[in-house]
């Protein structure tokens, strides 16, 4: 019999349009980052960012002796949207990061939000990045654009560990709240 201890694995999805900070966030909070192949951007996006992610960002957080969390970051370009459904399977929840300073990014995020919002039993939280930039759109603007009433939108800088934690913690609190709501509904009315 193998001596390897069995570990539970949970999954959290980090998604968002190009250049929203997904790779940075995963790097910052992972104990191990296994992939995340940055290559020079060669398409029209090269104007905005010199390096971009191909394949997936993938990080592992060691929670305790019996549990790891896998963080999956989707590539930001719209052409990879065929991966959304597969990646979302079995996820605890989704963090949607959006570059607040780019209306184009907010527009692109609409389709992503609509997809992930409709996944049953998988809470979503929005992280509004680059809020410190002068051209950044407000949280309320993003909420209105995405029609995201009732969803937590957290301003965050994924380069700062505390901010990265704040987003994940907000998602986990939402998940726990929904779990406890399900428990409360043991009382059926």
């Amino acid at each position, binding site marked *: 019999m193998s001596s390897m201890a069995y570990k539970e694995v949970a999954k959290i999805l980090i998604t968002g349009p190009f250049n929203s900070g997904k790779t940075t966030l995963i790097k910052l909070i992972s104990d191990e980052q296994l992939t995340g192949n940055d290559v020079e951007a060669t398409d029209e996006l090269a104007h905005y960012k010199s390096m971009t992610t191909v394949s997936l960002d993938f990080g592992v*957080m060691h*929670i*305790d002796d019996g549990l790891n969390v896998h963080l999956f970051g989707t590539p930001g370009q719209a052409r990879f949207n065929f991966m959304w459904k597969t990646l979302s399977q079995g996820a*605890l929840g989704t963090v949607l990061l959006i570059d607040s300073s780019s209306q184009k990014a907010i527009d692109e995020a609409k389709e992503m939000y609509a997809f992930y919002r409709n996944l049953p039993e998988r809470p979503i939280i929005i992280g509004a990045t680059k809020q410190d930039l002068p051209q950044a759109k407000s*949280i309320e603007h993003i909420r209105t654009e995405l029609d995201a009433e009732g969803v937590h939108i957290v301003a965050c800088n994924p380069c700062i560990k505390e901010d990265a934690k704040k987003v994940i*913690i907000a998602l986990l609190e939402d998940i726990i709240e929904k779990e406890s709501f399900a428990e*409360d509904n043991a009382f059926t*009315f």
Partner: protein
Amino acid sequence: MAKKSRTFNQIPLLRTILAKKRSGSIRYCFSSDSSPLEKINITSKQFSGENITEQMKDLLSRPTYTCEWNSQVQLMPNTSIDAIVPCLCSAVERVVWKPKHALALKQAFLNMPAIHIEAPDPAVTYSDMSAYIALYRFTEKNSKSSPKLFFATASKKGDQMRYLKVLVLVYCLGFMSIKKAKKIKKDSIATRVLKRMRKI
């Protein structure tokens, strides 16, 4: 579009907001109405509409067929919504259920297993505290303290309604929990991750 069946789903939603001390809004549409969704906002500072007690009374009084809850953007823990407790007490005192609605609510409680009730809190300004204390003592004394057995202790016909009201009140306040055999509750995966995240 087919109509959804009638429920009292707004009551568990109200409980979620009050018991968890979170801001939130409940959007609902009564089954007998063709009116669009109404909304009740419950936050730490203000309530929508002129009269929260009347709104809550309305919310408690009828079944809905559309009802949903949104937590609002409020990441501050321990939001104080104690100010709403007197409004809830007053709403429960004044609510009048149609007999069929009262029966449906009572039926929901009759289906519950043994329950535990928290001791009366000074913030609860409910006028019929004798019903509260009767319920509290009943659950403290009996290991099989189900609402069904509690209703069976009613000696007068009027007590049934008093007992129903106090059950609704303690339920909404989150003072009611299911009595379980004592065992160590295992944290969910999300709770374990959250604990770890708070440490790093």
